[in-house]
């Protein structure tokens, strides 16, 4: 007997065949002993299963079982509310907040620096004007060449924040010594 016919015998027993095909399979079972034996075997299993399943009983008490379910319900419910907030914050707002905030901080620092140091020729505490050092080797132009060029007005040069040397960092918000003087003493 073909595998397809075996599957059809099963489908016939389960009531899954169309009437025309069901009639064909019924005839096959009547005429073919192998088909009949198979249908009987499947019927025995089906009848056995219809006795039902072996019952499975929970050992946990009613209160304990419910307390576990309730705790999970409580734990998952507060999640529903904040969903809307992070979508906006993390999606659009945060994307722009970081660069705009950084730019703002740079602008504030520049404005404060100008207020603190209106005359760039006078060194502010912690800030010195540095002339380019003489190159120790032929890798860069010697200091004399730069001096000769003389294109820069007095007082212009590379700004060196002494405070940023060593272990101190001007941008460290935890270190009050790194704040510009105008912020530390706004009356000045």
């Amino acid at each position, binding site marked *: 007997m073909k595998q397809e016919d075996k599957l059809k015998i099963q489908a016939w027993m389960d009531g899954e065949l169309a009437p025309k095909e069901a009639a064909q399979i019924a005839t096959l079972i009547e005429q073919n002993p192998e088909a009949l034996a198979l249908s009987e075997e499947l019927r*025995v299993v089906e009848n056995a299963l219809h006795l039902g399943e072996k019952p499975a009983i929970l050992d946990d008490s009613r209160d304990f079982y*419910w307390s576990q379910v309730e705790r999970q319900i409580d734990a998952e419910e507060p999640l529903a509310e904040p969903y809307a907030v992070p979508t906006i914050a993390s999606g659009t707002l945060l994307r722009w907040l970081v660069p705009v905030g950084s730019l703002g901080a740079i602008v504030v620092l520049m404005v404060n620096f100008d207020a603190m140091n209106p005359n760039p020729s006078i060194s502010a505490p912690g800030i010195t004007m540095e002339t380019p050092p003489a190159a120790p080797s032929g890798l860069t132009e010697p200091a004399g060449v730069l001096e000769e060029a003389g294109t820069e007005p007095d007082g212009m040069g590379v700004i060196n924040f002494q405070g940023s040397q060593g272990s101190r960092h001007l941008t460290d918000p935890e270190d009050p010594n790194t704040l510009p003087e105008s912020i530390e003493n706004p009356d000045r």
Partner: protein
Amino acid sequence: MAKKLDIPNAEDEALVRAAQKGAMPPYEELVHRHRDKIYARAFSMLRNEDEALDLSQEAWVKGWQRLKQFKHNASFTTWMTRICINLCLDFLRKRKRKQTDSLDQMEEETGGVERRMPVEEFNPTENVEREELRSQIDEGLAKLSYEHRTVLILHEFERLEYKEIAKAMHCSIGTVMSRLFYARRKLATLLISLKKERQE
């Protein structure tokens, strides 16, 4: 004036309607009434007490969260059982992905083994006590792979049609038919060997 619900004596439907309005005590009563049935379904599919306990509780949590979607078209227990079955199927699928199929399992999948099984003419259920037979069926089910066991459970105990099983198990109707055929034939063989073992 609204009549106060007598929770211990109320029908399931009244409890569900009250719970759908957000009342927790009626839901607690529903959990108490049907927790064994839901746990039993999870256990029959997973064959592990701890996993069945966890998943049955998860089913009740999901039931509460989706209670407003319940339209009273079927009974509440049928609806809850479907939630439990879906959770079990997800769990078993995830677990299966982590395991490598044995050669036997692969052969079962392709439906090769049952072709070599002789048709049994000896009735394994004859002269067997009801409880004894239930135990034998339980033992036989435990020996099937999860795909075969699940198909059998969904068809025989949940009375689902082939197309409904195919949808739940994400497979074709043809696969459902061959899995069911293999599962039944394998179960017949197991029942016979169990009966012979106990007779000896």
